[in-house]
């Protein structure tokens, strides 16, 4: 086996046309004329706002951005963005986006999905998009409930969740979306939350720049069917102690000052959260999203639990690896060094094999 350097692009937006020099876009340019129809107080509003505000900074031509969604509350997202968009069918957005991204390197393709859409009905497409590393930015709005169908438990609802379809409590083991994505060979995996605009935008920025599939889990509050699911992460005091901040080059830390705790690696190689004062500096885990081995990122993802006593937030993994769409296009390009086939070449293909002539 030898690897060939195909000179593949390294940025997520390489190949996507930029605005002309001096041209500028604002949030307004990305706001469609459609009335937004989520419930009042829905976390989706904040995310939409953040995305509309963030997109101009990419400097891409608006017509070269496409949002594709599945079905669910979050999947109405494309209607509200004045880019190209498709509101598709339940769970299939990553598959549809794969076809688009593979055939159009000049587009920045985003998938908007939810916990039911991505992890239940569309689980297969999600893991395969991640494993292939198609250049897609997948925003997974996780509200741990089915909203659009009015409140059934989802694949991220905790065991015991009492919902419309589980009046006696759910007995289903939930997915940890981060662990799942890492297990599916994802090259970029991050978690953020609707209420932290700055963090959300930072993560989106990194995702956009990443070449390949980027999975961004966004904790999103559904005030109607699962209100307050993430309150402990939003409360200024509670969150400080619970959120494990993933910042490259820094120890993974929760809390501040004397109450700060850091993640260390034990003798058994496991990760453990201990008070920072007195922690063995040699054992303190310094976050490195670009570590080739996903084991550390996976271990970090396991800090997450149903009671949310510790929740890592930030970019778990961000590594460069060849993307499916670049690879597919490279093969097509290599097969056609002189551009598209000519009529004669096509005729030669049809006339290939054993032929014979019949004369009149």
């Amino acid at each position, binding site marked *: 086996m030898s690897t060939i350097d195909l000179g593949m692009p390294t940025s997520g937006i390489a190949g996507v046309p930029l605005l002309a020099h001096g041209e500028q876009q604002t949030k307004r340019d990305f706001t469609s004329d459609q009335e937004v129809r989520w419930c009042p107080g829905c976390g989706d509003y904040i995310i939409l706002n953040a995305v509309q505000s963030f997109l101009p900074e990419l400097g891409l031509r608006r*017509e070269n951005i496409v949002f594709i969604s599945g079905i669910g509350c979050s999947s109405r997202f*494309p209607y509200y963005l004045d880019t190209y968009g498709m*509101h598709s*069918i339940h769970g299939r957005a990553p*598959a*549809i986006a*794969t076809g688009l991204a593979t*055939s159009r390197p000049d587009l920045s393709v985003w998938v908007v999905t939810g916990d039911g859409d991505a992890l239940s009905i569309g689980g*297969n497409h999600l893991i395969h998009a991640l494993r292939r590393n198609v250049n897609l930015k997948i925003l997974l709005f996780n509200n741990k409930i089915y909203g659009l169908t009015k409140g059934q438990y989802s694949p991220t609802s905790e065991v015991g969740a009492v919902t419309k379809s589980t009046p006696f409590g759910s007995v289903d083991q939930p997915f940890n979306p981060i662990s799942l994505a890492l297990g599916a060979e994802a090259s970029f995996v991050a978690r953020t939350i609707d209420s932290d605009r700055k963090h959300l935008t930072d993560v989106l920025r990194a995702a956009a720049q990443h070449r390949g599939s980027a999975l961004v889990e966004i904790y999103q509050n559904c005030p109607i069917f699962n209100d307050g699911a993430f309150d402990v992460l939003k409360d200024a005091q509670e969150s400080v102690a619970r959120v494990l901040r993933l910042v490259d080059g820094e120890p993974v830390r929760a809390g501040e000052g004397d109450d700060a705790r850091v993640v260390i690696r034990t003798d058994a190689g496991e990760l453990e959260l201990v008070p920072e004062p007195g922690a063995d500096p040699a054992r303190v885990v310094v976050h490195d999203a670009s570590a080739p081995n996903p084991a550390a990122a996976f271990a970090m993802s396991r800090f997450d639990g149903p009671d949310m006593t510790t929740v890592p937030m930030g970019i778990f993994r961000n590594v460069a690896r060849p993307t499916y769409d670049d690879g597919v296009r490279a093969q097509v390009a290599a097969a056609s060094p002189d551009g598209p086939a000519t*009529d004669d070449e096509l005729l030669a293909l049809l006339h290939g094999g054993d032929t014979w002539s019949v004369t009149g």
Partner: protein
Amino acid sequence: MSNLKQINSVVVRFAGDSGDGMQLTGDRFTSDSAVLGIDLSTLPNFPAEIRAPQGTLPGVSSFQLHFADHSALTPGDAPDVLVAMNPAALKANLGDLPRGSTIIVNSDEFTKRNLSKVGYPTSPLDDDSLEAWQVHAVPLTSITVEALADFDLGRKDKERAKNMFTLGLLSWMYTRPLDGTYAFLRTKFAKQPDILEANLTALRAGHAYGETTEAFSVQYAVAPAPMEPGTYRNITGNVATAYGLATAAHRAKLPLVLGSYPITPASDLLHNLSRLKHFGVTTIQAEDEIAAVGSALGASFGGAIGVTTTSGPGLALKSETIGLAVALELPLVVIDVQRGGPSTGLPTKTEQADLLQAMFGRNGESPVAVIAANSPADCFEAAVDAVRIATTYRTPVILLTDGYLANGSQPWRLPASIDELPDLSVEFASEPNATDAKGNPVFHPYVRDAETLARAWAVPGTPGLEHRVGGIEKADGTGEISYDPANHDHMVRTRQAKIDGIVVPDLAVDDPSGDAKLLVLGWGSTYGPIAAGVRLARATGARVARAHLRNLAPLPANLGDVLRSYDRVLLPEMNLGQLALLLRGKYLVDIRSHTAVRGLPFTAVEIATAIDEHLDKLDGLVGDQEGTA
């Protein structure tokens, strides 16, 4: 020494263990016949298992070839010659063999063990059970090994060349040149000179064996069939379909993106297209059937020709996405190589039972265009046509072929130049097509072409035309989400009207007598068997008309008139009467079905018999009426 007999047609069936190379032998014999200008039609028949246990009945694979000095039309009702490489092949095929026909068996394989595997208590070669046939028991394996005595190869490798020995023998019997096979072997074994030489030697030895063995005293020749002038090649339906798709993309000057998931008997479409990258073809082997059609639709949204290929079970899985494509009004080509169903059914056998699934197998009123290819070679044109309709009308098109067309082959008259083929150029929207309330130019994605009712195809990357589409009902024109009852009613009818308005040629009727009272109507792959059956019936004086449908949605505009102008319409289908059900409902004509679902095409005799029966009944009716008048 030998004596050469001229014959009009012959049907040869090669049968052996899956590992015996019978498909290859059949393929080569076909090519060597085709280059002589002899018309032919082939039918491979293989088990669903890749290698069932050796020497057993389930492991038998066969290849039937009909060649004729006239239009062959079908692979032939029954073999004139059976080549049976082992007892299982003999046992599995004997029932199809008319008395008096020829059997060539590999006597080496008639060992006690092999005989008992298939339940022969004693060797049929030693008793009188094969008395009704002309049997040539030839120790094919041992003669081949002997012919290769000087080769430094293992016994297994030598034995493997027995199929080439057999091919040599048949080539002698039917005066076939060996040059094509020489060239083929030279390419195939370019990197294994020993194996190449062994195969060439075995091939020559088989030929020489025919020449020198008294048992094979007669050689047969079939003259070239009259065919339209032109250049021909032999082609299977799956190759023709793949080439048709690539050609259509070339004529549309658009990239073609195939999203596919492996499934018998459609996988060869994926294989063939994956080799055509040079022609702007991208293939995506998706994680499942749903993703396959999804990626094709995503590519269509981006301005490519999105294609997905599958068989019945896969079509079932794709139905929701095809419905989305109906709502999005984007081009999408879906190819269903039908096989026996329901469920897994008969993966390697043919059937036409997906018709209603193609027509209606989606939620809601969800009309699509449906085309059915008539013959292996016709798959080329049918594929081109599917792309034309999909791009012109921005609609999903389902192209139905089947296992028989996919793997069967026939001579194909090649286009002499690419210009002969339709120009499929497409125009993408590039300008706003409406004005908003304030009079500003805007783009409305569901503004339609007045003639085709196709909506504008505006692809991402086009400035100023940013828009959103989706599966929720949309207001005609603006494309905005609309739950308005009147709009939904209008959109449902408009989508149907768009399909109904697709321009398709009128149905042509073949009625040499000019006064036939019975019409035999067919669709799809029954073309050859029906034409052959009608030819048989006419040869005995029957006055019968024949017509064949290629467009099933929409149906030709003159179909109702055609159906009503005959006293009786007979419709043979390889299902339980699906098209008959549709036509009865739509035209209120009392269509008579003739159905069979054996996983094999109809035979000509079967069709001719059905024709005779219906003609008898018609005569009876006339008689009754006269009697009571």
